[in-house]
């Protein structure tokens, strides 16, 4: 048993090292004058990203609106004291904390979106040249994948969405989550393993 565990750990280490080597570069910092001077431009630039992020994590329009609204309300309160060099991570961090708060408060019951099934399709921007059938198929594939992702523990869910769908690098995710980059790499690694388990055994849930 001990030997098997040791082998497994080595394989994981190698996989994580490879992950680290192919990490995505950090986004360029926001110019200070632009970021500090005008909350409106900050909002216009980041609202679509924050709303999209919340939707991708929660798949619920009402909740995503709440998260986006609360994120920018809090951002406005602290706007004068924020660091313009890390504005993206700052906003994502607020949103992530709010999402985690929601999960912490609401995990005992299943949230039902009052706007009904498939409402998220209304919010999806079709790609250029994409036909209606292709779009529906793409959304259906997403829903199925999201269904499995949403069964992961919250810390794994967010790291999957941030890394693969928000296309952040490990160090930027680390700033968002307030942890070290190796922790992010470890969570990403564990998240993939758990997700593989869930995809292989769809009836099993982490919650």
């Amino acid at each position, binding site marked *: 048993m001990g030997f098997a565990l040791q082998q497994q750990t080595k394989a994981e280490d190698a996989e994580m090292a490879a992950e680290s080597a192919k990490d995505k570069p950090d986004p360029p910092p926001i110019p200070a004058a632009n970021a500090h001077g005008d909350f409106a431009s900050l909002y216009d630039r980041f609202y*679509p990203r924050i709303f999209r992020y919340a939707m991708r994590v929660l798949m619920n329009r009402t909740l995503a609106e709440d998260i986006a609204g609360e994120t920018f*309300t809090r951002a406005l309160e602290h706007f004068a004291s924020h660091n313009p060099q890390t504005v993206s991570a700052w906003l994502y961090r607020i949103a992530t904390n709010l999402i985690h708060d929601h999960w912490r408060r609401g995990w005992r019951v299943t949230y039902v979106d009052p706007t009904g099934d498939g409402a998220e399709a209304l919010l999806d921007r079709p790609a250029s040249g994409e036909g209606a059938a292709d779009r529906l198929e793409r959304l259906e594939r*997403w829903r199925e994948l999201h269904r499995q992702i949403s069964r992961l523990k919250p810390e794994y869910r967010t790291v999957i969405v941030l890394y693969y769908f928000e296309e952040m690098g490990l160090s930027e995710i680390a700033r968002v989550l307030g942890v070290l980059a190796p922790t992010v790499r470890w969570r990403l690694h564990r998240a993939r393993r758990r997700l*593989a388990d869930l995809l292989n055994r769809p009836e099993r849930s982490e919650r």
Partner: protein
Amino acid sequence: MKHDPKTVDALLKNTRPPEFANPEHQALLRQSLMDKEALTRVAGPPKENRLMTMLNTFRSSRLRWAAATLVTVIVCALIFWPGGHGSTAALAAALAKLRQAQVMICSVAIESGSGQATRFKMAFKVPGLMRNEVSGQATYIIDATRKKSIMLLPKEKKYIEMPGLGHDLLPANMIQEMRELPANEDCQKLGRKVIDGRKVDGFRITQGPLVTTAWVDPATREIVRLEHESRDSAGRRVVMSEFQFDPVVASDYFSMTPPKDFQRLGVTADTAHASEKDLIELLRFAATYSGHFPDSLDPIGLGTELRGIASNPKAGLSKVPINERLKIGSFLQRGIIFVAKLDPRTDWQWAGKGVSPKDGSAPIFWYKPVGSERYRVITADLNVKELPASEIPALADFQNQNVRISESRWWLSPTWYSDRGTMDLFAYKADALLKSVFAQTGTRLKIEAALPDKRYDLKGRMPKGREGEMNTAAQQALVKYFALKADKETSATHVYILTAPKGKPDFLRAPKKTQGSSVDQTGTVFGNMGLGGITNVLSQKLGRPVFDETGIQGQFDYEFSLAEKDPEGVIRETREKYGLELTSARRDLEYTVLRNLQGPGQ
């Protein structure tokens, strides 16, 4: 297809996620935020983030004051004309909309909770005019800027001058306050529904005992309906609807000059100086005519209750001369105004629900005047004494009025907040509520009582210096509310003992320098915590209490993930993966057993 981390990686990389966008919400939120930003700029830079807090308090207070003003008007009218309620008031003036609202008219219904409602029209005009038409029998106009009020009695062709009432309570910019309600960051979003054919979004603001629900048309950002109710209103509420912004009204619509053919009644109702004495007279009035003190002192609840007392034929107010009725109405108004104006810093409390004057020296109300170190306490015999904070009853905040049947909404989640002496549980089933509150003190609980199949809220606050008593106070309040008795009993219980026969397990690492107390919702991931965390997880997994007898001390970072759910699997995994041993044993444990006071079902 068999998935592994590599195939998952490929799957995720090849998935093109939706490009979600919501321009409608983006535009609405932008407008709201820019309004707030403008307010911030006008007020200067925020100091320790107090600006928004101040604004929110300001707005909610305004609403509360507005409700108080509203209620005083109704109380006033009904004291003068007991029984004269029921029909819908006529809409006074012609209508048109201007871009910038300076005038607002709406319909108001005070619902009794039993299906009956008193309806009237209410109008505001900036900077401080208010007009009410009550049941077509009386028109009441306040000019806050000139500190004048007048009541017109069209049937009798008479009028009464009333200095003082509501002048300082009337929000001068009520219209703006109402329109900005949804921007309040403390709002609880209730989702969408259709009212009168319009899709509206609901927002709920809770401020003290007053709960305000605003239904807003997201397309126009206009309020379609406002519902005010108190936490203990038992279905009584004030509903404002049919809002008209900037209708064209007659030139004398808000005029303080009575029609020429109206005669002045030779009485003056002085309501300018509301004081503690007025509240005492109000309480005396309520106790005299109903036998007990009011259930609550929030403006709506109190106003509605007084209205019920005044309109009861047994009170005989219809036979009282109008001058006497005017005096009664005056001190009732002043009493309500006194409470409505009490500064939150006074830490005022009402404990008079269900209490009668026969209860003698039982405290029913207390507050600490701003700047004073001592509380003024009104007792059931309506005497007043001054007491230090240490002698103020500790459990008052958790008496029955703070446990109420919830209006549980299916789209809201049960929530728990407990911080700095405050508690707010929402939409809990009775057994879950009891378990949650007793779990806060580590009490082992057995519920052997029949409990109602309803959802409940519990909200409370402990005075400064006694925050630590909150959980105990809440437990006692719940036991009382559900008519239970709590017995301490000891019984032999199957437990597990956690030991470390091989010493400190490898998975326990030295704590990080940084604070790492991160516990996720399943309670399986820990940082900088002792082994108590493990025993909690194991207790949940095994369904039995687990006692830590490893002797391992200190704080650790560790992840403790147990995939198996059957007890044997948990025990095996604990042993094989972590080197910890779980041994079954029997221990005498003390439980708190809750039973019905009168037996189940009675």
